[in-house]
């Protein structure tokens, strides 16, 4: 009897706490769940992890610098290490890395409201924080309050969660809705109006928040937690043995290694030496010089180290050159066309980039049906370049071989911010000279280059945009963003037809309409000739010791370099690798005895179009 009473005593406060729902009026309201919602769970899509995967072992990777903080928001948080932190924040839903359909994360089920603004979620009852607290609706209300708080010193997130997300509506401990501030398609609602739960019992928001939590490891919901912080040298993440998600359909056989050890090696060449001695398990070979020249030698010939070149099919960055149409020279479409045909991108690809990289054709590649495959980038063609430039009145040549018109030379400044790209640009410059164009290279500090472009002080902007889940046009090509500073419309294009298309694109809520409009928009941008697409690198390349194992195929459509990103933020392709301890012992013995294995260089094109 006494023991029962005691048990009741212990249980009571816990229950009382679980029942209490945190719902501050500024971000949250209580409600009654509407009837007739169509709940989706999508628990039948194929899995992509490998049942052969074994748990155990340590994955050794490196980073060029030690993180400046372990916070995921606030000053200095947006650095290379953040994927290790955010990769352990399980989102409400993921997108399937092959079918791209939503699949469960923290949420077991979800449903869309008819207003194109509300998404309802039912949390997985198993979902729990690393410190044992269950994940509840309150954590999302707090999550929104947290992201809007001035104390996190992160204006971008403050702004985003104020302008994009309107509120949380809580129905019970495990059921709630997130209301978007604007109408979106179902996909966009899941992607853009998402809230990360935050542990209210852990954080105390206040003016010193950023300092207080600089090096604190916050509770998380993911498979790993940081267990060792060796200041300036390394950080170790350890797998949670009883993680709530480990046996769920889409998590099974993933996140296999027991420890991920991230060492700081401040120089890539030195890191390479560590890798060749087996102190790192894998190494990214993105640079042509690494794949072609460095990754050679006995360790490769004897099969101890393997090479993998894996083509993905994910949205690609929009790399290119944007001709500023407010600059008098580029007001004339013939001049823009002349420049299009005078850029010898192909030569850069074949020579400087070792033929590894391909020409980007449009500004929307890798988006499945939204990509307009009929659009091909204009090739280097001196005859056509000459024809259009002649038409524009630039038909005479000066003594230096550069075209002249009314005493003015045909010259334009290319603004860029990455010194590593100089070797590509000098080739473009030399080749453009053949068409009588003088390209002047303006290499600025990265931030200053971007500022120049935002202020529209550029003539040609040489840059790139990171891919989004859905193609984006409004910021970069809508007329309302032309002729003004601090917008992304680097062409300063203000075309009524394009504006109308973009407007309709933004207001469309079905995927089919959106895709069709996206294709029309790409066509129109191609016709305007103000954007010169440059290159696309739709693959990752790595070298790894043979004890590191991968599923077949070794990645998914959406995969990114798994050595640079052993964990990825909000994506479901990560954590597929495992370490075969037996193979490791075998390899180490073989290296001593001289035994060899078959040499292995795999170029995987399963997902290449």
């Amino acid at each position, binding site marked *: 009897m006494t023991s029962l009473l005691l048990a009741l005593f212990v249980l009571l406060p816990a229950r009382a706490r679980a029942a209490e729902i945190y719902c501050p009026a500024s971000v949250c309201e209580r409600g009654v769940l509407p009837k007739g919602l169509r709940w989706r769970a999508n628990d039948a899509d194929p899995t992509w992890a490998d049942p052969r995967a074994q748990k155990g072992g340590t994955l050794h990777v490196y980073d060029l610098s030690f993180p400046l903080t372990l916070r995921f928001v606030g000053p200095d948080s947006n650095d290379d290490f953040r994927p290790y932190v955010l990769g352990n924040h399980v989102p409400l839903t993921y997108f399937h890395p092959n079918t791209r359909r939503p699949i469960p994360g923290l949420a077991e089920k979800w449903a869309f409201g008819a207003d194109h603004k509300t998404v309802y979620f039912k949390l997985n009852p198993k979902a729990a924080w690393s410190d044992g607290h269950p994940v509840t609706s309150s954590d999302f209300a707090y999550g929104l309050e947290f992201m809007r708080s001035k104390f996190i010193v992160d204006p971008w997130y403050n702004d985003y969660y104020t302008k994009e997300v309107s509120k949380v509506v809580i129905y019970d401990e495990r059921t709630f809705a997130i209301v978007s501030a604007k109408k979106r398609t179902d996909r966009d609602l899941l992607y853009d109006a998402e809230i990360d739960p935050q542990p209210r019992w852990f954080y105390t928001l206040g003016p010193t928040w950023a300092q207080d939590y600089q090096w604190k490891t916050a509770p998380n919901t993911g498979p790993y937690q940081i267990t060792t912080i060796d200041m300036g040298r390394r950080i170790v993440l350890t797998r949670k043995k009883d993680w709530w998600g480990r046996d769920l359909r889409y998590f099974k056989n993933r996140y296999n290694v027991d420890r991920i050890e991230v060492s700081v090696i401040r120089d890539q060449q030195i890191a390479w030496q560590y890798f060749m001695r087996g102190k790192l398990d894998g190494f990214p070979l993105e640079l*042509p010089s690494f794949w*072609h*020249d460095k990754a050679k030698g006995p360790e490769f010939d004897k099969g101890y180290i393997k090479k993998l070149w894996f083509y993905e099919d994910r949205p690609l960055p929009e790399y290119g050159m944007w001709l500023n149409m407010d600059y008098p020279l580029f007001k004339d479409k013939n001049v823009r066309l002349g420049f299009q045909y005078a850029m010898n991108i192909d*030569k850069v690809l*074949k*020579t*400087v980039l*070792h033929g590894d990289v391909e020409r980007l054709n449009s500004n929307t590649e890798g988006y499945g049906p939204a990509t307009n495959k009929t659009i091909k980038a204009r090739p280097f063609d*001196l005859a056509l370049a*000459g024809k259009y430039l002649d038409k524009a009145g630039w038909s005479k*040549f*000066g*003594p*230096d*071989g550069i075209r002249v018109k009314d005493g003015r030379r045909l010259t334009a400044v290319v603004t860029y911010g990455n*010194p590593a790209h*100089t*070797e590509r*640009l*000098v*080739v473009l*410059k*030399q080749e453009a*000279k*053949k*068409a*009588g164009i003088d390209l002047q*290279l*303006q*290499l*600025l*500090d990265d*931030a*200053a280059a971007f500022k120049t472009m935002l202020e529209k002080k550029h003539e040609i902007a040489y840059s790139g945009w990171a891919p989004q889940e859905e193609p984006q046009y409004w910021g970069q090509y809508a007329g309302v963003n032309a002729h003004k500073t601090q917008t992304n419309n680097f062409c300063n294009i203000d075309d009524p037809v394009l504006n109308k298309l973009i407007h309709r694109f933004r207001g469309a809520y079905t995927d089919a309409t959106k895709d069709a409009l996206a294709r029309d928009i790409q066509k129109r941008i191609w016709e305007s000739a103000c954007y010169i697409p440059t290159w696309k690198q739709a693959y990752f390349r790595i070298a790894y010791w043979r004890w590191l194992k991968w599923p077949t195929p070794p990645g998914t459509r959406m995969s990114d370099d798994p050595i640079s990103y052993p964990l990825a933020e909000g994506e479901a392709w990560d954590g597929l690798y495992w370490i075969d301890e037996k193979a490791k012992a075998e390899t180490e013995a073989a290296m001593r005895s001289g035994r060899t294995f078959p040499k292995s260089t795999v170029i995987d094109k399963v997902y290449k179009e």
Partner: protein
Amino acid sequence: MELPRLDPLTLKKFQRFRSIRRGWWSAIGLAVLIGLSLFAEVFVNSRALVVRYRGHWYFPTYGAFIPGRTFGLGYDYETNYRKLQEKLEAEHDGDFVILPLDPWNPYENDLRDGVYPPTPPSWKDRHYLGTDTSGRDVLARVVYGFRIAILFSLILLLCNYVVGVSVGCAMGYWGGAFDLILQRLIEVWSNVPFLYVIIIVASVMVPNFMTLILIMVFFGWMSMTWYMRTVTYKQKTREYVLAARALGATDAAIIFRHILPNTISVIVTFIPFSISGGIVALTSLDYLGFGLPPPTPSWGELLAQGTSHLDSVWIASSVIVAMIVLLTMVTFVGEAIREAFDPRRHAVYE
């Protein structure tokens, strides 16, 4: 016009300089190198020296570009004379092309399919020092980089000395409060971290040759003032200055006609070291990426490429050898001048 007669003391100094053989030969070597570099287009250039084509003579080195169509090649851009040479040789029509010793200009990329730069030195491809990471001829980049570096350094020296010497003389001549205030100002000014200023400027604009000189003069004129101030103080009390003043000469006349010529030995002694300083400064700025904009040929940029491609040893070694040779020569000249102008050999103490 009458040639200025060298006074015996100057003549003596000159003879003394000549007798220091390594300094003397270095000076001659440097002069020859600078002289040759001014006509680098004749030795290192993608344009031919002479073309004889269908009975016409062409001298493309200087002057307007000649489109390929002139020589029966199917394009309107500048003729590729290396290709033209091969073509004319194959035709055996008596037409010919004479190319410079190194037939590449410092900007063109020699990129061929299947060959990835940097490529090692090759006699056959006429890249005597190989190519850099963009396939440009290293020798051409070294030669034109030298010309830019030495001209930069000479102009920088001139500007620095004009400002530094004038201010220094004025401080020494007028002395008093003027001297005191300017001294403090210079001390403060000297403490502005020059490199940071350059980094800030280079991040918001692309410095060109002249702006870079301007910035460097802005922060480089101070060092000369201290020496000039001291020597001027010393000279000011000499009888000849008092005599000139008694005759009613103006301050400017006294400073420039009387004092300055007597301080020339100080200035001359510093020149070689300032030259090497200027070259090193430009090279280090280029190395860090804050110097002249790409694709200007520059030693610093080559050095940066060389250090990140250590296995392509020809890049780093070419520019390092060139720098060692040049700086050693300048230092030898400097030593010899200092020796020749050493006042302990010439001064007559009363």
